[in-house]
């Protein structure tokens, strides 16, 4: 097969390229230039492109750079800012996979005559009971990335490879070291690739939107503090609230951007039996039985049922911030996904 490997300059995609090559495929590596200037130290920096290029040299495969910067801004960065403006929690990695890696890049690969696109994601592709391929959890549960790949359709999965998904991170690093790849000991990438640790989310957003201060109130509506940027506050957040007084730990249990207000309460107030959802989509047939629901990229699935447009938990769980992806699993397979919806007032 002709395989186009998306090489970020990290160890996982380096090894993905090596594994594809060793399986006898005709391999070309490509690094996506998505963000950042020439000297930027964040994602797709010159240093990362150089790492990818040098790994490709070591593996004796061709390497190219595709500039999808405009699309990344349009489909990932702008929606990230818009979500904050609407008081929602964005899913930039999900959107990047949906629009950039498995749409734009897959289409480019098609145009250039490649059979498949491989990435360094820790996920697997497995056949469901209906015979169609589904995204499945990576073998290494601690590194599993199926959550951010949940949207891939059977048609996309037919043209995608995840060569590292059935190995552990330890194995991947050891393969890289064995091949003498310069990325073997490179640290794992940060969470949101276009936001550097040095500047942070607040600085990034403040250059693109007007951050407003907000009032923090308790469940009775009594003011207990203030926040600098109400749009940055997320349900479930505990730190950075500058609350007066001591007492039990308090968490954000609701945000209301129409009044620039944040409500805090105890852990028991954060918990709920029922999580409202929207944008529900099933990978195959609708699942009426028990499933696992995972509410963030690094979490684990908790049992529940999807009924009447909402998620009913078996055991109370923390409320999920509106806009956050919730991915449904049965065993190892992704069976569907939804977005956390806002609770109706007084609901």
């Amino acid at each position, binding site marked *: 097969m002709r395989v186009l490997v998306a090489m970020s300059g990290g160890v996982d995609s380096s090894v993905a390229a090596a594994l594809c090559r060793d399986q006898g495929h005709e391999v070309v590596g490509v*690094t996506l*230039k998505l963000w950042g200037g*020439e000297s930027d130290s964040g994602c797709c*920096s010159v240093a990362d492109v150089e790492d990818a290029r040098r790994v490709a040299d070591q593996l004796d495969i061709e390497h190219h*750079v*595709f500039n999808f910067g405009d699309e990344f801004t349009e*489909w990932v960065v702008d929606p990230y800012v818009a979500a904050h403006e609407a008081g929602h929690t964005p899913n930039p990695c999900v959107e990047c996979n949906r629009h950039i890696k498995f749409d734009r890049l897959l289409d480019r690969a*098609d145009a250039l005559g490649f059979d498949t696109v491989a990435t360094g994601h820790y996920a697997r592709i497995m056949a469901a009971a209906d015979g169609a391929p589904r995204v499945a959890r990576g073998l290494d549960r601690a590194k599993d990335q199926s959550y951010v790949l949940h949207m891939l359709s059977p048609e996309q999965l037919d043209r995608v490879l995840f060569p590292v998904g059935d190995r552990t991170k330890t194995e991947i690093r050891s393969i890289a070291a064995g091949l003498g790849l310069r990325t073997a000991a490179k640290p794992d990438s940060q969470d949101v690739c276009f936001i550097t640790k040095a500047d942070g989310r607040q600085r990034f957003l403040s250059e693109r939107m007007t951050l407003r201060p907000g009032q923090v109130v308790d469940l009775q509506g009594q003011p207990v503090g203030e926040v600098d940027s109400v749009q940055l506050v997320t349900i479930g957040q505990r730190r950075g609230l500058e609350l007066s007084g001591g007492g039990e730990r308090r968490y954000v249990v609701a945000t209301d951007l129409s009044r620039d207000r944040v409500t805090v309460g105890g852990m028991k107030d954060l918990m709920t039996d029922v999580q409202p959802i929207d944008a529900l989509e099933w990978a195959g047939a609708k699942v009426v039985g028990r499933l696992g629901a995972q509410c963030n990229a690094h979490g684990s699935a908790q049992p529940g049922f999807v009924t009447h447009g909402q998620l009913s938990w078996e055991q109370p769980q923390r409320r999920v911030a509106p806009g956050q992806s919730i991915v449904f699993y049965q065993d190892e397979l992704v069976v569907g996904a939804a977005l956390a919806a806002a609770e109706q007032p007084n609901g």
Partner: protein
Amino acid sequence: MSAYLDHAATTPMRPEALEAMLPALGDLFGNPSGGHRVARRAQRLVDDAREDLADALGAHPGELIFTSGGTEADNLAVHGQREGRRVLCSAVEHHAVLDPVLLAGGEIVPVTEAGLVDLDALAAALDPSVALVSVMLANNEIGTVQPLAAVAELVRRHAPNARLHTDAVNAFSWADVASAASGADLISVSAHKFGGPKGVGALVARRGVQLSPLLVGGGQERERRAGTPNVAGIVAMAAAARVTVESRDQMVATIAARRDRLVDGLLTALPGTVETAVVAGSRAHKVAASGHLCFPGVESEALLFLLDRENISASAASSCASGAIQTSHVLLALGVPPDLAKGAVRLSLGWSTTDAEIDHALAVIPDSVRRLQSHAAQRPMVGARS
């Protein structure tokens, strides 16, 4: 079969240049600044080269400053402009001019649809407060040759205190710079664009033109550019300049014919293709080697990938350090619609371009373009997704 069509990025060394530089890397290794016989031999090489290159540029030997290349020459020409004095350049300058001009708080003069500096806009912008005007001789992307004599006349008339700089880096192979840039006070050239090695270039600064050095610390080049000179590179640059000047007329005729065959062949094979900066069908205002086309419904990144696989080396706009292709400021300055600019490909010929290379390009490019166009037609762009 292969075709190297990226001579505007760099062109192979002339054998004469390679031969000329080897002794300076061997026996004639001396540092020209010394006082002994080993130094004197190296100094003589540099002196001879300086005279030859000055001759090729219509300058006096003392007006020539050897640099590390075109970018340094451009930067040196623009460097040191004092506050409160105005600096102008055209909108299609190379970044080696554009960026230092913008850093100096400079102003950009627009160009016409044909890629030529808008002389009315230039005249309107000129006044006695202007200290420097920079207008390139031939554009590196689209090959247009600027009306430098007319620019010089306007500058003398309306901005009597201004120096005129011209970036002749992409012109030297194809234009008689000595005559075309005779009205300029400052002229930049780069060896590797005309068959010399990379890492060496020169700036002509006419007598009386004050420069503010970028490099200090040794007093070389009459205190205008410190550092031990790149003797081998300078010798090779002069050799390349000599052979270029000797062969230029004949080379221009031959290469222009090959360029016309390539560009006309592609325009015929691929209806809808737009030749950049061509108004009313004439490409007479472009250097002989320059072909620049925009293919609608094509992304140049994808096309260049396919061409590379067929051993055709070409380029789009300027590439950044990571190798990613960025939309060209030159095409945008010309008013090329951004969608069309995305399908831009520069096919630049050089002294070594053969008919066989043109044949190969004509055999491969149309199919590659059609393939991408039909793929794009089958599926709307990502932006149109539901």
